């Protein structure tokens, strides 16, 4: 069989394939996925999501476990304010340095947190105090603290600060005597009408950060961040990570794991099956016994135990899956091979002295290429699902982001219990949709290859 024969065979196959609607839908989706992978840097808001997924500092300014922004339009998104008014006053040999950030609150809910950040360039310890002026002209003195020398980056999340919490508690007491200091949430008091479950207080807030510095010290890059109640396209998870970025980054790994595993294992299986059929005799018998041993091993359990024991990287995981997946096409390919073997042209080429390898690879394997493609398409979802099942158990490669790992974090992070559906639903749907498009392609090829199944 020459290359041009293979080519025309594939073209015929393509001609039939393009008439199957579901197959074409699958193909279009596949092209779309490849497009998404290529456009990844342009469509994820956090460009380093793939490499710094487990780096807490990368995500620290995000809100924790909040729903997608497009669902709740009234709730505040995350805002960063880096414009501020400065006033300086020299008193003796110290400098009183004040920055005023003004923030216009126009949303239904209070922000999740209020974070003050700045760089301090100095030799002496400095005094810092924060106070918040509300639209109802009341001012809450949040905290006053001494920052030791040597710390250059100052980051104060108000909701985690005990002084601020206490200040908020005292403030809330004036409105309601029944508030409890152990359950109070600082920002829920500061940005609402100060009684429990009252609406947000809209208007302009002013956060004043006052420093007492020595004269040649400087404060730079100051800003406040207000992590909101909603975030991005798909919300954030319990570790403040952007789920949309995780899903997009996970796509390339899902495609890589699925396609590579399917391609290698099906290729091995097809060659193995054809060899077994062609060689016959004791070689066939031996190869069949080896095959029987491999099919008798339950796939998922052995993969789980191997992952638990060897803690594989993604590449080792793909290799492991290939070791057990190749048995898939063997049985069908062997029976097809037994038929092809009896064709006269095989006998003819053996007659003119062609080697076994030449007959197998040149005359038998090319005939099975369409079947191999169908089989590959149906193997891709299997590889993706198995990898996510292993990752669900927490045995995934910790240097990459896969959908199974997001689901693992969600499941162990109590997403089911807390009803954080945007953490659980998208990764699983992504697995299902990618698998579905490969199933569309595979089933369409299957229908072409089995003419008996054609509908009347």
């Amino acid at each position: 069989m020459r290359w041009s024969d293979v080519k025309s065979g594939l073209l015929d196959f393509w001609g039939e394939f393009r008439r199957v609607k579901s197959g074409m839908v699958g193909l279009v989706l596949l092209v779309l996925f490849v497009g998404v992978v290529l456009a990844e840097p342009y469509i994820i808001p956090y460009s380093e999501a793939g490499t710094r997924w487990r780096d807490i500092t990368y995500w620290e300014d995000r809100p924790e476990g909040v729903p997608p922004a497009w669902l709740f339009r009234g709730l505040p998104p995350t805002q960063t304010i880096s414009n501020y008014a400065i006033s300086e006053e020299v008193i003796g040999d110290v400098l009183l340095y004040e920055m005023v950030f003004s923030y216009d609150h126009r949303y239904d809910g209070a922000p999740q947190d209020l974070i003050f950040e700045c760089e301090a360039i100095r030799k002496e310890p400095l005094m810092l105090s924060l106070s918040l002026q509300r639209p109802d002209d009341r001012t809450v003195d949040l905290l006053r603290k001494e920052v030791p020398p040597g710390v250059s980056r100052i980051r104060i999340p108000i909701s985690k600060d005990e002084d601020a919490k206490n200040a908020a508690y005292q403030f809330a007491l004036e409105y309601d005597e029944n508030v409890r200091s152990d359950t109070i949430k600082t920002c829920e008091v500061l940005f609402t009408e100060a009684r429990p479950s009252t609406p947000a207080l809209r208007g302009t807030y002013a956060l004043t950060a006052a420093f007492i510095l020595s004269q040649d010290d400087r404060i730079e890059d100051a800003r406040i961040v207000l992590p909101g109640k909603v975030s991005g396209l798909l919300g954030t998870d319990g570790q403040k990570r952007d789920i949309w970025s995780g899903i997009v980054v996970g796509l390339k790994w899902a495609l890589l794991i699925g396609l590579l595993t399917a391609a290698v294992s099906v290729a091995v299986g097809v060659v193995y099956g054809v060899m077994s059929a062609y060689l016959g005799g004791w070689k066939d018998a031996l190869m069949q016994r080896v095959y029987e041993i491999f099919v008798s091993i339950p796939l998922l359990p052995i993969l789980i135990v191997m992952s638990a024991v060897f803690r594989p990287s993604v590449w080792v995981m793909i290799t492991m899956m290939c070791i057990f997946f190749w048995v898939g096409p063997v049985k069908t390919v062997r029976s097809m091979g037994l038929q092809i073997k009896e064709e006269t042209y095989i006998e003819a080429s053996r007659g003119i002295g062609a080697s076994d390898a030449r007959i197998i690879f040149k005359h038998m394997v090319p005939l099975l290429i369409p079947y191999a493609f169908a089989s590959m398409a149906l193997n891709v979802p299997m590889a993706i699902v198995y990898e996510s099942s292993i990752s669900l158990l927490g045995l995934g490669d910790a240097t990459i982001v896969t959908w199974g790992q997001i689901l693992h974090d969600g499941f162990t992070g109590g997403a089911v219990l807390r009803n954080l559906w945007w953490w659980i639903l998208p990764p699983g749907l992504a697995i299902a949709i990618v698998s579905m498009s490969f199933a569309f392609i595979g089933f369409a090829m299957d229908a072409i290859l089995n003419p008996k199944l054609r509908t009347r």
Partner: protein
Amino acid sequence: MYWKYCVTRICSGIVIFVIIVFIFSALFNTVAEETARGQIAETLKAEMSGLRGLSHEELLHYRETRYETMYHQYHLDRPLGERIIWRAIDSLTLNFGKSTMIKSRAQSDNVWTIVSECIPPTVLLFTTAIAIDILIGLWLGLKKAQRAGGIMDKGTSIGTMVVYGMPSWWLGMIMIMLFAYVIKIFPSGGLYSTPRPSGIAFVGDVLYHMALPVITLVIIGFWARAYLTRNIVLGVLQDDYIMAARARGIPERGVLYGHTLRTAAPPIVTMALLSLIVSFGGNIIFEGVFSWPGMGNLYWVAIQQNDVPVLMGNLIVTTALYIAGLVILDLIYGFLDPRIKVGGRR
């Protein structure tokens, strides 16, 4: 000679199992031995702290001899090849050793006791689900084959492809979220309620706890069953004798249930049983989501507790059940399809 076929198939199943156990014990030799050494060291530490009134030399001597006897007992003083063989023999005689953390319900640390406790819930869950699954799948598949190419057939075929790669455990999470936390009509997991009811109430309680996992498995499973049934039936419908039956004026129902199903039954039964086995192997960790105390859940627990002996024992028992299932499947297939018995090989 059906019995001859049975004997060969069962023997080959046993031989395959023995070979696989050998492969496992070679593959996991290092980690299994590390655990065994750790366990010996721990036992010895406990023994030593119980000793009183011995001099330093005597203690050292005691330690040395105890170490030697225990290493000998666990065959750790033998060369590598022999150790692997010993471990395989231990596994084949269900002697998986002691767990490091996990205890059975009766507080035993024998791995076989722990694993064997988990078999009934798993078998109960998966057989129930597959039975319902097959009934729905068979019915739907016949309907699809009857009107192949129709809207219903095409629609359900698309359904098959949509759930093709949907992880059952993910659907399980969604179902729990929906039907256990948002609409509180099902329990979120477990085999029975905590004050364990007795008598007939216990059966009802188990069924109530089983409902959500079974529904999830059926929703994922029956599509593929229907699609395969359709393909098998459609293949048979193309045969000449069906055309002849139709030509004789036999009503379509008679053709379908009388003629087609008679021929299609063996592959359909095989396919159904095979799906039970594959579902057992592939969906097993699904139990963890529902905290269903079966073998799949045991994998979760063993991994969390890093309990290597339980993990190994569970793997070997799972493999044994899997192979037993494959053997039974072949026996049933041979019984249903007379062509198999004669040849004895496929």
